[in-house]
């Protein structure tokens, strides 16, 4: 350290002001600078959450609204469908997505890379309703798939591919795949593909090499991207409504029905609160397992 720097350190250590400019402006300035964000958080996050909780836990029965909610078999079944189907979608998306992401990471063919990127990005360029209507046209009883199958002669009755859980999971997987691929890709960028070659040169088959080198290293990314996909899936509305119909609803369809058909805002608020708490639970578990930084990186990707 130079003489000058030593002098500054000694002066600051004594509590005096140093003559060099320091970025530390003091506590008051800091509090003032953070005020806009705090106001934003208070108005856009805390206040709506408080309103939601006061509606859910208010009239007519207070806290008993929640137990009344679970007393209805329809509500519990739909809540279970929501959480379970979202888990199925997450597993499929993370599984398929890691294959796509690893291909994007390691392929040297420009064409393959461009094709995979296009496949991932194109869904974002289409409106949700358009995508879902296209799926409807494909899956309905006299739609593309059924007509192709009966044309080839594989089936004589149309397969029931629409207005059931299969259609909902298919539609959600299609829309969530890009959300799974992008964070996984970000995670895979930190993994050296040479590891696979090294393992193969030691005698492992390709699958064994991937399984023992890449997979353990990518577990945090898998968990982080799975969390992201899960908490988005739990809140899906259009897909269950358009592809699942009235008999395969998600909690969000039930919320819409409660508000617009039965004018029951309390039950809708309780459903929303439970969905929120469920998602927070998943995030908390993931946070503990994976760590804050990796989760933040996955969300940012």
């Amino acid at each position: 350290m130079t003489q000058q720097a030593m002098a500054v350190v000694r002066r600051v250590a004594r509590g005096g002001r140093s003559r060099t400019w320091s970025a530390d402006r003091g506590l008051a300035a800091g509090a003032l600078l953070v005020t806009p964000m705090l106001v934003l958080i208070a108005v856009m996050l805390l206040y709506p959450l408080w309103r939601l909780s006061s509606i859910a836990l208010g009239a007519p029965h207070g806290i008993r609204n929640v137990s009344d909610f679970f007393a209805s078999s329809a509500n519990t079944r739909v809540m279970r469908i929501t959480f379970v189907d979202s888990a199925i979608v997450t597993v499929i998306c993370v599984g398929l997505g890691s294959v796509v992401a690893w291909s994007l990471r390691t392929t040297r063919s420009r064409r393959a890379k461009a094709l995979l990127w296009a496949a991932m990005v194109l869904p974002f360029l289409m409106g949700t309703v358009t995508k879902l209507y296209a799926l409807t046209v494909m899956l309905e009883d006299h739609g593309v798939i059924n007509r192709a199958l009966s044309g080839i002669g594989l089936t004589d009755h149309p397969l029931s591919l629409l207005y059931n859980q299969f259609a909902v999971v298919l539609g959600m997987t299609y829309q969530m795949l890009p959300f799974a691929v992008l964070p996984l890709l970000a995670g895979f960028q930190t993994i050296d593909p040479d590891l696979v070659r090294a393992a193969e040169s030691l005698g492992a088959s390709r699958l064994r090499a991937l399984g023992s080198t890449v997979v353990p290293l990518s577990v945090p990314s898998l968990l982080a991207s799975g969390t992201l996909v899960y908490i988005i899936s739990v809140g899906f509305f259009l897909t269950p409504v358009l592809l699942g119909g009235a008999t395969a609803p998600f909690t969000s369809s039930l919320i819409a029905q409660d508000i617009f058909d039965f004018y029951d805002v309390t039950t809708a608020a309780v459903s929303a609160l439970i969905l929120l708490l469920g998602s927070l639970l998943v995030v908390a578990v993931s946070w503990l397992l994976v760590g804050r930084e990796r989760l933040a990186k996955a969300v940012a990707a």
Partner: protein
Amino acid sequence: MRRIVVCIACIAGLGVLVGCGGSSGGGGGSSTSTTTAQKVSGPVNVSTWGGVWTDGEQRDFGTPFTQETGVKVNYQVAGTSPMAPALLQAQSGNVSLDVVDAENAEVLRARGLLATFPPDLMQTIQSTSRPGTYLPYVLNLGSTATVIACNPSVMKRCPTTPQQFWDVKDYPGPRAILNQPSNALYFALVADGVAPDRVFPMDLNRGIKKLQEIKPSVKVWPSSGSDQQQALIDKTVGAAIMWNGRAFVVKRDNIPNLQISWTDALTSRSDGLVVLKDAPHKDAAFAYIRWILEHPRNQAAWTQSLTYPTPTTQLEQLVPRSIWEALPASHQVVKQDDAWLAAHTADIQRVWQGLLAG
């Protein structure tokens, strides 16, 4: 350290107050626009269904009304029910809507949210509207009836009565029933043998049991009008319990040999325009309704484009024969008990969600 915490707490508290204040002060967007002719201050905020319904309202009522009086009309669509925003606003104490295209005015009336029409407006209503198209607080605009529609190219035999609709052995084929509990339960009870005029008060358990019977044959439970049309057009279903206006559009545009049966068709008396008691622009709202009553040609134009009825006494003369015969007014329809339905919303919710989602 303590100073920071106190600072931040104050700021967060201010933020919450700003949020609270903002929500109660910012609703409505009212701008006073006085005209020499009407001396009412607008605009009129109408909560409506959206889609072709609202496009027609804008074209046949809103725009000409604004041209004549200078009072703006704002059509607002929120979700699938025009009444839900009104109820939510009343609950939060911040009413910004004036007119509502209510699907069951009894629900609003039971909560004391409706304004009765003033005597001079009632006089205009009585002199220009067919009997049975109004009550002291609601003017029927576009009340649909629920009918049975059938596509003979999909169904071997077409059902024409609720009993036949439920008979999947003699009338096999995929069906659709609209996702409206009051209508579905009514048809189920009639199919189970209840006389149409004795359906209310409803035996909900009996109706649900009957619906469970037919549930395996029901492919779709469409909610919106377009979904009801699409189910028939795509040949997903061959027979449907659906709104008469939509059935007529399918017949006119897609399936010319569609059979529409009005046997035991159901309609509502409380389905139409209402004015909220706490409406910020009540005079403008009543003026808007009076304008519609005084312009039967505009009513006829709206009817013609949508095949939904309007209350004017001159409707039969002003619309083509084919349209008149597609309206509930030219058929024998059963009127539902709106007050009973409004009082039992929670019970209906419970059994209906148990049927479809449970």
